């Protein structure tokens, strides 16, 4: 207000101050930004809601309901990403009859932005997955599967950078070791690489080279393996890496009472979330950004 008064009074310097004032104002307006991340995992071909008489999840889930929910959130905040952490396939006859075609088509209609690959997505073999790719209008991200000698070569990216309202969001994918879990005839020459090493490299790329403001890992590693220490879960991944803000998990069908807040290798907070399975929940994480260092220096508040 004061500035406006000043501009009105001093005509001599109007030209550059108007320019400056305008710019300043536009910065001020955009100083706070809001990014919404929505996510699913292990939907396993559950297109329709569970029957009303289902013993575990009566009348829960359903893609058509998820569509309504996603749409209303997108209306509220257009700066929204919708992500899936794998195991899209397998679990209802829809997969057996159509091989994943309907799953991909519906996810495209819901405007999914990216997904990673779960072990069950190889259930019709890597060729079966490849055959359905034309139905998916979103990207498949996987950084630790090397598909070089397979049909998926060049069709799966390690990461993707989304820009929403000037905020650069780096999303990368990680998959579980397929050996012992999936018949080698199904995944063929797919090479599994150490997810921690890969995550350390990719986060550097995203942070330094791509200059990302927000880094998200889409993981199908599983939440945590208390008994089998050699297996890498999301909590282990979080503790051995840095610069990841959010790990969206899958595979273990873990229902969390709320997103887990854990520490990374340099003691910063990392959010780990997973929303059970079969599309009966939608995860929602909201990130609020500010350019004001004074506000930021007070640290980020995490409300879960």
């Amino acid at each position, binding site marked *: 207000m004061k500035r406006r008064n000043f501009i009105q009074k001093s005509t001599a310097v109007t030209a550059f101050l108007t320019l400056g004032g305008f710019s300043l104002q536009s910065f001020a307006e955009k100083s706070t930004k809001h990014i919404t991340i929505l996510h699913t995992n292990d939907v396993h071909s559950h*297109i329709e809601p569970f029957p009303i008489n289902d013993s575990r999840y009566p009348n829960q889930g359903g*893609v058509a*309901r998820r*569509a*309504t929910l996603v749409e209303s959130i997108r209306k509220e905040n257009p700066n929204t990403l919708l992500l899936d952490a794998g195991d899209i396939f397998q679990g209802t006859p829809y997969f057996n009859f159509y091989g994943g075609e309907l799953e991909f088509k519906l996810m495209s209609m819901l405007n999914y932005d990216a997904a990673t690959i779960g072990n069950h997505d190889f259930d019709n073999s890597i060729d079966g997955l490849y055959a359905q790719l034309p139905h998916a209008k979103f990207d498949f991200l996987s950084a630790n599967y090397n598909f070089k000698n397979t049909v998926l070569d060049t069709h799966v990216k390690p990461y993707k950078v989304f820009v929403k309202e000037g905020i650069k969001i780096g999303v990368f994918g990680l998959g579980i070791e397929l050996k012992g879990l999936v018949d080698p005839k199904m995944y063929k020459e797919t090479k599994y690489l150490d997810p921690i090493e890969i995550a350390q490299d990719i986060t550097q790329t995203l942070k330094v080279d791509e200059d990302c403001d927000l880094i998200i890992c889409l993981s199908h590693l599983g939440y945590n393996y208390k008994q089998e220490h050699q297996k890498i879960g999301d909590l282990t991944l979080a503790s051995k890496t840095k610069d990841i803000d959010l790990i969206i998990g899958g595979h273990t069908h873990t229902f969390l009472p709320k997103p887990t807040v854990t520490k990374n290798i340099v003691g910063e907070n990392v959010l780990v979330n997973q929303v059970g399975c079969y599309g009966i929940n939608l995860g929602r994480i*909201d990130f609020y950004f500010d350019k004001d260092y004074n506000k*930021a220096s*007070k640290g*980020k508040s995490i409300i879960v």
Partner: protein
Amino acid sequence: MKKIIISFFAIILLVACKNEPPYIVKIEGKQLPVNEDINSKNEIEEYIKPYKEKVEKEMSTVLSYTPIELNRIDGELESSLGNLLADMCYQRANPVFNSRTGKNIDFAMFNYGGIRSGISQGNITVENAFNLMPFENTLVVVELTAEKIKELVNYLILAKRAHPISKQLNLAVKKNGYTLKINSKTIDDTKTYFVLTSDYLQNGGDRMDFFKNPVNLYTLDYKVRNAIIDYFKETDTVKVKLDGRLRNEK
């Protein structure tokens, strides 16, 4: 002069802008249930409809008929559905195995927990096959030493459960030990045996560890569910009985 001032100002702004990355100041996380409180999006429901109708039509296709209800709980150490499952998988898989190896499968064994649903008296449909076997498990043949067969028998005795076993195996659990016949013969310690099971159990599912590290492993590339469907297709009326293949004589 004015120009210089303007560009100077612009540079300052640009620099200021670039040097201030957006900081995360607040994160909120929650889980939103997808339930009946949310209306289904009509466009999506309409899109699903033709797929749904075709699946339903396919699933209701009648394959066979059973004059009695088939379930896994109508016997003590065997069951109507368990016997049927093991016998039909044997019947479908043995010709495949024989054509590839020139050998015959000795018997089939699955797990009680793997029978996911019973079949009511009347028509048997594709849906029944899917409910019985919702998983994509495939049939495998494991070649086991006689020692491993004895481990398998001990597992059965300790489990006290009606694990599906095909009729080629005959086991009577006695007070002190057991009597075992495979294809009407007592076990030969020098011989190896070919056992039909699923890839899931071979990998140690249900703690059937005797299937791990077999002498040889033969994959048949034949899904358990497809074997079930193929058997029903070629069988007008299913005939099954409790024949005491696995019984308690204590």
